[in-house]
């Protein structure tokens, strides 16, 4: 019997998972040693989450999992029944999921959730368990553990509840921890702290299997990386190898698609032979230096404030914000959730009136206009959103959506919009004309966003408000959309107000950047300068906390 410290915590060979007749994981093998962090990187549909769940015997309803070997802590589990799996879960393997708000029972105090594995697996008295719960909460950095234990997950902040989730997973100090997108729902600052926490747990000897789509996060934590696509591991190696000198084209594509540190104007994607073509731009372009004294702003927010009535008083969403977007430039608006970015977007679009201050379009009043006067001007300013699907009427086809947009752009009478015009719009965003007949529901996320862009372009606007347009998309699709927007901007001289919480994306896309915190703009400036030498401490913190991908 070999020294248990040398034996791998997890050893899987040839894992296959099928749902009904469809196999979704085709022979995955991996092993994890104590104190090692192995990451599986892939996009949605790659099978990475299914793999992770299969390692807990929880691949999902109607699934069949087979493997050559499946050993956790030396114990063979290939044919284990549910009862045996239950003994393993929580004790030998812990699971951390995304978004503690829904990964912890919102109706139960978190202390009870953490108490569960203690109750199930150990023979401890209640006072003993309670003490252990507090101990665990303290060990994950929870201030005031006794107080927190009585709270429900919704009553804690994002970072604190994620810590509670982690505490529940490591309650019995399992040797192996599986973390499935543990930081995806979190703000950058909180994300950094959670990653530190996981690193700490690893340094105590726990093996970590990290599942993520975010290469930057993975780069920070993982010792070894496996790249997964379509249910198969396409590349594996140490973190340095995979990220520094990737061998497979898909891996290279993934790395190239990460926007942070890619200079403005350089394409993130290369055209695929059979896919929609996106132009490859030959040279990088430095942040456009805008001479603000000469050129007047196209869109200007001047000391605008907006507050809302909520039960219990008024909530100030936007507090004395001033912004300018000039023709042809991209202003990036960055901030964490709750900073007021979306309200700024709505103010810019004239969907809501500011309580104080003015919004002007090309020097002329915009927010002060009454709706009737504003409507004909609306074609000058367009919008795309994070969730393209909910911005479409659920009963309409793509054709109807686009024809409607074209019709709206020609005020007065509604001309009959020809198929030709619709097809032309689709072509501009890299979609085939046949898409027109389909319903948005049947399209993929990337296709939907393209349709949304086409719709926004129908009126030939001068400025486009983009509110988290790529946050819900896979990395490679995100790269395509960002390239598309870049392209269109160049072709049409569009101005973009690009709103995002993702620093990397803003870094790549923006000429100038404004940073928002708690409803105020704390810093504005040229993108390069702002990220290299942030003046405001909050900006500095954001930049420091945002995970960066170390490339070759």
């Amino acid at each position, binding site marked *: 019997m070999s020294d248990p410290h040398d034996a791998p915590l997890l050893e899987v060979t040839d894992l296959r998972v099928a749902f009904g007749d469809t196999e979704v994981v085709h022979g995955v093998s991996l092993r994890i040693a104590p104190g090692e962090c192995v990451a599986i990187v892939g996009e949605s549909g790659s099978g990475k989450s299914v793999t992770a769940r299969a390692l807990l015997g929880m691949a999902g309803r109607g699934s069949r999992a087979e493997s050559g070997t499946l050993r956790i802590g030396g114990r063979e589990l290939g044919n284990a029944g549910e009862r045996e799996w239950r003994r393993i879960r929580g004790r030998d393997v812990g699971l951390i999921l995304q978004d503690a708000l829904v990964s912890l029972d919102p109706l139960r105090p978190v202390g009870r959730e953490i108490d569960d594995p203690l109750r199930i697996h150990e023979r401890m008295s209640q006072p003993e368990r309670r003490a252990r719960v507090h101990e665990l909460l303290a060990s994950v950095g929870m201030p005031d553990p006794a107080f927190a234990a009585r709270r429900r997950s919704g009553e804690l902040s994002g970072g604190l509840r994620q810590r509670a989730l982690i505490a529940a997973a490591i309650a019995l100090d399992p040797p192996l921890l599986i973390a499935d997108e543990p930081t995806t729902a979190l703000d950058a600052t909180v994300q950094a702290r959670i990653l530190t926490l996981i690193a700490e747990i690893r340094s105590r000897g726990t093996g970590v299997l990290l599942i993520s789509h975010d290469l930057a996060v993975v780069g920070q934590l993982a010792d070894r990386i496996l790249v997964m696509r379509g249910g198969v591991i396409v590349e594996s190696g140490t973190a340095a190898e995979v990220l520094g000198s990737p061998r497979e084209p898909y891996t290279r594509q993934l790395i190239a698609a990460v926007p942070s540190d890619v200079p403005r104007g350089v394409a993130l994607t290369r055209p695929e032979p059979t896919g929609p073509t996106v132009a490859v731009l030959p040279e990088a372009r430095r942040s456009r230096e805008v001479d603000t004294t000469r050129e007047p702003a196209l869109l200007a927010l001047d000391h605008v404030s907006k507050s809302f009535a909520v039960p219990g008083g008024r909530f100030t969403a936007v507090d004395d914000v001033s912004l300018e977007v000039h023709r042809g430039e991209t202003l990036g608006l960055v901030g964490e959730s709750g900073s007021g970015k979306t309200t700024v977007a709505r103010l810019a*679009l004239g*969907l809501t009136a500011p309580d104080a201050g003015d919004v002007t379009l090309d020097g002329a009043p915009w927010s002060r206009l009454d*709706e009737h006067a504003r*409507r*004909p001007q*609306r*074609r000058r*300013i*367009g*919008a795309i*959103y994070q*969730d393209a*699907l*909910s*911005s*479409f*009427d*659920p*009963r309409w086809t793509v054709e109807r959506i686009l024809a*409607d*947009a074209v019709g*709206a*752009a020609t*005020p007065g009478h509604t001309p009959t919009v020809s198929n030709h015009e619709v097809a032309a719009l689709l072509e501009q965003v890299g979609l085939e004309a046949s898409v027109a007949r389909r319903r948005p*529901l049947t399209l993929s996320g990337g296709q939907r966003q393209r349709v949304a862009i086409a*719709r926004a372009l129908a*009126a030939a606007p001068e400025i486009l408000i983009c509110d988290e347009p790529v946050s819900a998309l896979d990395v490679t699709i995100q790269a395509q959309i960002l390239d598309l927007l870049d392209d269109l901007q160049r072709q049409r001289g569009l101005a973009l107000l690009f709103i995002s919480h993702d620093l990397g994306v803003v870094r790549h896309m923006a000429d100038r950047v404004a940073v928002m915190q708690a409803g105020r703009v704390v810093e504005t400036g040229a993108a390069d300068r702002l990220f290299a030498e942030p003046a405001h401490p909050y900006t500095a913190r954001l930049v420091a906390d945002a995970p960066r991908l170390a490339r070759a």
Partner: protein
Amino acid sequence: MSELELRQTTIDAEIAHAPAARRRQRLRLPRVGTILAGAFVVFLLVATAFPVLLETQDPNQIAPSEAFEAPSLAHWFGTDESGRDIYSRVVEGTSTSLLIGVTATVIGLALGLVLGVLAGFGGRFVDYGVNRLVEVLFAFPGLLLALLVIVVYGPGPVTATIAVGLSTAPGYARIIRGQFVAIRSSQYVEAARVLGHARGRIIVRHVLPNALIPIFVLATLGIGQAIVWASALSYLGLGAQPPAPEWGAMLAAGRTYLSVAWWMTVFPGLMIVGTTISTTVLGRALARRGRGDA
């Protein structure tokens, strides 16, 4: 109209707006159920339009010598205290009962639509006012509001119909208002505003169609409940009176003879139950088809 049925349909309506990825996996009654329900409804419709085709005997034929006969081949549902064939009377009463149910539903739906539209579009004060009004009406649970109408206007089938209709209206109004409010603040309506469409156009092209489609399903589900309440009123002597072959009235008549002739009570009741179930099942099948899952 039961609030729960309406709530169920609100959930259905919400699902209709949810993208495919977020739809839950709904396990449903097997297709067999829908087919059976459909068959039953067809039976009801034929019984309404051409009862003669389905009756085995003259529903009004009195035959004292055959009174209180148990169900047999000659009399499928047995006979009543006057020797009339219950099955034929049940068939005969279908048109009355269905008519009451449908009319009451139409009244409730219409009134609910008016109230709901007012609340949905009338601006904050109107919305508030209508909401409070609807709440008040809701404080008269079901039958009570109907009873209040009857105490004012006297019993009878017409009054009962109006009463049931009025008592279902608040339920519909709430749902309809909820639909309008939800759609009004949806992202696609906002997107239409951004494009520069006029408010009226948005209402006509986006809000109304999306809000009203679930309404039809609502109505289908509501008919069964309306029939139940209406026959309850008849049973209590406040609606249709015997010897009308309305199902509730037949049950009222059968009450006295429960110990000797249970069939007088059971079979008309079964018709009511069957009608409610089959209209509900069909309504849900309609809702599913509208949403696009099979």
